[in-house]
């Protein structure tokens, strides 16, 4: 991923010379992985229930929804924006999915397409207002968060939508060999994100726009289109995450997805992506999502009552971000 790192540093100047290997540089660069490994180590020492196949599969399944959303969130944050609407868009796509399945008996592949399209359309509205009307991303997506939640209630009449066909539930509960389907979808999403950011021109444009929009525009980049793309992508992934969530809980829930935006932002930021935009890595987001998942799982396994869990989680998020800010100031 060295290439991606170089690109990511492009806007702000790198830290230290590349090429000559030093442990200090290595540790600074990959500190987030280090923390993840240390936490895993601590958990394995503390409880024998952590490090076994069943539990590790549980963790990956538990992180996939947040992971998918975080890939989109990273894209948006890299442009210097934020997307607060993801939780509501998941709920909206989720109830649309459930109604199409239950009341219209639509074929599952079609339902997946429609759900993703719903997310994409709503995301494109976010992108349009942010890019072409120059409205603040925080406000635009906050408005979308509220409005989309309202639409969800209207569409579902405020009731959970179930039962859903068993074939569909496979997308949330099923396995391919031992790998849960949600994990496979998450992994493919992650690869798609890496492909976009590393190998496609739009990816480099995203870093450029987030790093210095004026410079990007002067050098001929259509910054508006780049931003529109990022919000569309985030919306699309909401539709995808909604499929998994709906299949996992086996119902379309109008109140689902609340505060999912915060988890996605946490994974992004823990992974080292700067909220100012232009700097960040998708693999960091992956590790960030895993870290949150491991902490959630580990605290449950340690049978720590929820009140304390939240304190520990807060400390870890803050600590990870402090560590990262040190890295960038170093």
């Amino acid at each position, binding site marked *: 991923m060295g290439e991606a790192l170089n690109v990511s540093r492009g806007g702000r100047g790198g830290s230290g010379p590349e090429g000559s290997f030093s442990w200090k540089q290595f540790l600074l660069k990959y500190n987030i992985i280090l923390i993840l490994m240390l936490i895993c180590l601590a958990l394995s020492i503390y409880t024998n229930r952590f490090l076994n196949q069943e*539990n590790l599969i549980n963790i990956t399944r538990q992180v996939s929804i947040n992971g998918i959303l975080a890939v989109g969130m990273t894209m948006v944050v890299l442009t210097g924006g934020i997307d607060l609407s993801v939780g509501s868009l998941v709920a909206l796509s989720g109830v649309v999915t459930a109604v199409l399945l239950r009341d219209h008996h639509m074929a599952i592949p079609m339902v997946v397409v429609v759900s993703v399209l719903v997310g994409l359309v709503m995301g494109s509205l976010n992108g349009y207002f942010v890019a072409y009307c120059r409205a603040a991303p925080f406000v635009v997506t906050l408005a979308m968060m509220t409005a989309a939640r309202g639409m969800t209630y209207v569409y579902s009449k405020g009731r959970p939508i179930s039962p859903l066909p068993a074939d569909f539930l496979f997308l949330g509960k099923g396995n391919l060999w031992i790998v849960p389907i949600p994990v496979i979808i998450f992994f493919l999403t992650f690869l798609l994100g890496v492909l976009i950011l590393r190998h496609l021109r739009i990816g480099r444009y995203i870093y450029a726009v987030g790093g210095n929009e004026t410079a990007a525009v002067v050098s001929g980049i259509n910054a508006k289109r780049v931003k529109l793309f990022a919000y569309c992508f985030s919306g699309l992934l909401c539709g995808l995450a909604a499929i998994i969530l709906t299949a996992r809980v*086996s119902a379309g829930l109008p109140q689902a997805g609340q505060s999912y935006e915060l988890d996605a932002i946490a994974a992004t930021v823990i992974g080292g992506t700067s909220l100012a935009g232009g700097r960040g890595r998708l693999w960091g987001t992956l590790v960030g999502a895993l870290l949150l998942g491991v902490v959630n799982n580990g605290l449950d396994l340690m049978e720590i009552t*929820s009140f304390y869990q939240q304190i520990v989680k807060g400390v870890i998020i803050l600590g990870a971000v402090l560590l990262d800010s040190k890295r960038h100031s170093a």
Partner: protein
Amino acid sequence: MRKLLLAGLLALSLVLAAPLAQAQEKKEISVGSTVYYMTEFITLMVEGMQAEADELGVKLTILDANNDASTQLSQVENLIASKSDVILVAAVDADAIVPALDMAEQANIPLTGVNMLMNTDKPYYYAGPNDVEAGELEAQYVVDAIGGKGNVVILEGPIGTSAQLQRLEGNMNVLKNYPDVKILAQKPANWNREQALNTMENWLQTYPGEINGVISHNDEMALGAIQALEAKGIKLPVGSVDAIKDACQAIKEGRLDATVFQDAHLEGRLGVRVAYQVATGNPPPERINFIKMELITKDNVDKLLDTIYK
């Protein structure tokens, strides 16, 4: 080096958290539970759960699903992985908890319910309130208070939650018998006092002098509605559910008329007891164990104020 130190500290914070966990001894029965959200009610219920667990010598773990159905499923997975003997669930959502029953069945760990019924045909053991009955009791009180005819408004809980659906069902069971009672308006105020206050203010603007009674799905909202009424100098019959301390005092002061008591402490105790009985192979005779719902008015409110709310 300071960064390394910080990284070490972070890992250490997890290890330091370890003493917060209860000692792990595998011989005693362990009850792993996940509750939907730490409301005041659930906090009382959890105290009851803990009290019962202590008496039975059971190890109890309580997780908070933060009102998110997917989080709750993850917690059930984690409780299965941590080899609890029985899993006790106060469900976020009656439908969305059903996959958890399947998971537990596959893992051969019994799953029992407390507080919230699950929407499934599969048999399971349960202890909790009869929310339909609660809705009937409060609606009947309000209908009687307005003499069987007039206009009522309904403040609902968050749309789609079991408590909202079932209390509304109970309301409707009563109201359908009274063709002369008309529902002027009904709206969710999400268990929230301030939202209910605003909603009631708006209703008083929309239907000046037309509202005869208020049915609220919980006390917080009832108290908000009463504030709106008092600000206008209006006194109407208000029926409610929960019997929290504030509401009992309001009844004592004559500001609120009636609420329905769901004994949270007793419910928590019963929940753990049923889970324990199931885990030890002596399940209770009935699968669904409702705790008795009781209408609280001026006549019997002292009973609560002098005991649990002393």
